[in-house]
């Protein structure tokens, strides 16, 4: 085990054991990744279930992004555990009064669902590649077909039905997974900053905007890299989605903060000292002003002015980057901010982020960006843009 080097300086009065901030930057990364999973899946479902045709160009990218992020979701948790080798204790013998105990089931269910949906979405591609390619790659594709080479119209219709129902089932799955992450924090009565009924919903809406924003960035970047024309209608569709959801996210977060201040329960003075002091920049400036309100205004302006072309792409991509950053700051302000306010209600702590080691920011950054590299690797094997005949078949089958 590592030596203890991360105790937190404090002001005021804090309980002695609080001087070690136990949930580090890794636990910030964890809900951020689950948020991306839920958000990306939302885009996939908007096309697959609700028939938002303009999101078609990113539908498969959304599915793959969700899958890649989901594969890495357990990693920060495993890295954080004191005994990662005992990780399955909570799944094998779950203590059912614990919100955390159901994570294993939720995660497993959702990963399996994503894998099955991805398989159906890429089945024709697997068949095509299995028949065309030789060698190891060909063999891999033949294994992935699971022996099913039927790509007739009826089989395609059958596949489309599966995709539809899996996407339908995935909506409560993905959103439940992330709502649960919010519940892990919101259900704790020990911390005033966390203890809120709105927390799961706030997590959910911020998740959606982060996932949709991720897709904007990935789509625009991939089009640039592939030197392909960017589908403006698609980018606009994603921008509308961000615009709609960001308003709800902002409203909910504002309501929660207003509740906290208005109720003015014991310890609110310290909370106010915190938010107007050390949290002023990360909370009001970075999370709200730059990360949420500015993108909302910019998107509103572009929608109002019917901006098109290069200006639209640059504007929406900028907003998307800011929203992703804002949601990361929201996770940070919840996870770290909550622990920086003492349970005594009379003191504030300062989290000193480590650089190296299991709880260090380098490893956390690696985990944060790992899904991106996973996606780059996976998209070589399962191209998100280049199996047109199948997507056409899915659309026609619906």
């Amino acid at each position, binding site marked *: *085990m*590592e*030596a*203890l080097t991360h*105790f937190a300086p404090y002001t005021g*009065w*804090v*309980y*002695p*054991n*609080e*001087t*070690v901030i*136990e*949930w580090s930057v890794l636990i910030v990364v964890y809900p951020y990744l689950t948020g991306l999973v839920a958000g990306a899946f939302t885009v996939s479902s908007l096309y697959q279930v609700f028939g938002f045709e303009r999101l078609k160009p990113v539908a498969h990218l959304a599915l793959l992004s969700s899958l890649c992020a989901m594969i890495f979701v357990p990693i920060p*948790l495993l890295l*954080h*555990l*004191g*005994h*990662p080798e*005992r*990780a*399955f*204790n*909570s799944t*094998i*013998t*779950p*203590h*059912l*009064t*614990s*919100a*955390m*105990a159901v*994570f294993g089931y939720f995660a497993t269910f959702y990963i399996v669902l994503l894998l099955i949906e991805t398989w159906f979405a890429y089945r024709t591609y697997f068949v095509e590649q299995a028949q065309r390619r030789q060698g190891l790659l060909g063999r891999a594709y033949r294994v992935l077909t*699971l*022996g*099913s080479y*039927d790509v*007739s119209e*009826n*089989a395609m219709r*059958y596949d489309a039905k599966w995709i539809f129902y899996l996407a339908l089932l995935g909506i409560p799955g993905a959103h439940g997974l992330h709502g649960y992450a919010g519940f*892990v924090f919101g259900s*704790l*009565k*020990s*911390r005033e900053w966390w203890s809120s009924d709105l927390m799961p919903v706030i997590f959910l809406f911020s998740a959606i905007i982060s996932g949709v924003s991720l897709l904007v960035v990935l789509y625009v970047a991939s089009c640039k890299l592939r030197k392909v024309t960017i589908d403006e209608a698609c980018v606009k569709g994603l921008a509308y989605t961000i615009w709609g959801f960001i308003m709800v996210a902002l409203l909910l977060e504002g309501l929660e903060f207003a509740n906290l201040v208005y109720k003015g329960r014991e310890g609110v003075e310290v909370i106010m000292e915190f938010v107007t002091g050390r949290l002023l920049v990360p909370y009001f400036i970075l999370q709200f002003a730059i990360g949420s309100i500015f993108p909302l205004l910019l998107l509103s302006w572009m929608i109002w002015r019917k901006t098109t072309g290069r200006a639209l792409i640059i504007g929406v991509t900028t907003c998307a980057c800011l929203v992703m950053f804002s949601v990361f700051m929201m996770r940070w302000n919840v996870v770290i901010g909550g*622990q920086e306010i003492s*349970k*005594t*209600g*009379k003191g504030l702590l300062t989290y000193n982020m480590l650089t190296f080691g299991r709880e260090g920011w380098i490893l956390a950054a690696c985990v944060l960006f790992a899904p991106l590299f996973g996606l780059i690797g996976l998209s070589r094997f399962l191209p998100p843009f280049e199996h047109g005949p199948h997507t056409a078949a899915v659309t026609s089958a619906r």
Partner: protein
Amino acid sequence: MNQETKPTLAARRAFLNKLGLAATCGGAVVGSLAGIPVVAAKTEPVSKGGTLPLKDYDWTKHQWSFGVDATKCIGCLRCVEACKVENNVVRDAHHFRTWVERYVYLEGENSARIDSQQDPVNIAASGSEAEYRFANRYQDAKVEKAFFVPKLCNHCEHPACVQVCPTGATYKTEDGVVLIDHEYCFGCRYCVQACPYGARFFNEEKGVTDKCTWCYHRITKGLQPACVDACPVGARIFGDLKDKQSPISLFIRNNRVQVLKPETGNAPNVYYVGIDKEVR
């Protein structure tokens, strides 16, 4: 559906059925290897009438409880030292199974100045993070009121730590003590977050959470917790509520006692006398 497709679909359904069957069988095998029935018992409430595998100790015959008479505490911190030694608690200023808080009201001030032995000023006075004493920091100030409050795990009736533990590694015993199974805890620290009293900490060396057990290894042998034994003024009272003449029964009966943070609904089992409005 045409003639070509039907068999294919049937074959696919059969394949999926087989896959489902295989998954069920696999799960059963893994489950039996993991010994579900044995370990699952840990996550359930303690069975009535069950006993620990200890000779001469029946946990159904006791209901342990703890009292703190803050009017007696002199802040000598022998309890903290005794606890660290008895329970092999990390000798630093960040891990405590028990601690003592000092509340000082200076003239003209409305709220107390609060510190504990882990405060950097007090550590500087002791000269080491492994030794504890309260620095005489108010010697030149006009003190209106001052008192000490010993703190420890409250072994709540409805412990939030037990509620949130994902594995059931922390549990409430039949005799009223909240314990942690260090062989089963995986160190997620959710319980540390859930405890409103800051009574839990993470042991980095062992990779598990830790907290006061009321010296369970001692009380089940008829001894007192180490902190109670070490207290020179009788500020810490421990005993069995099932014995109406035990020190704790008399303490609760003869005093107007209160608990910390009752609004949490945790129903703490450490009873206080002589604490003030600012003690949480």
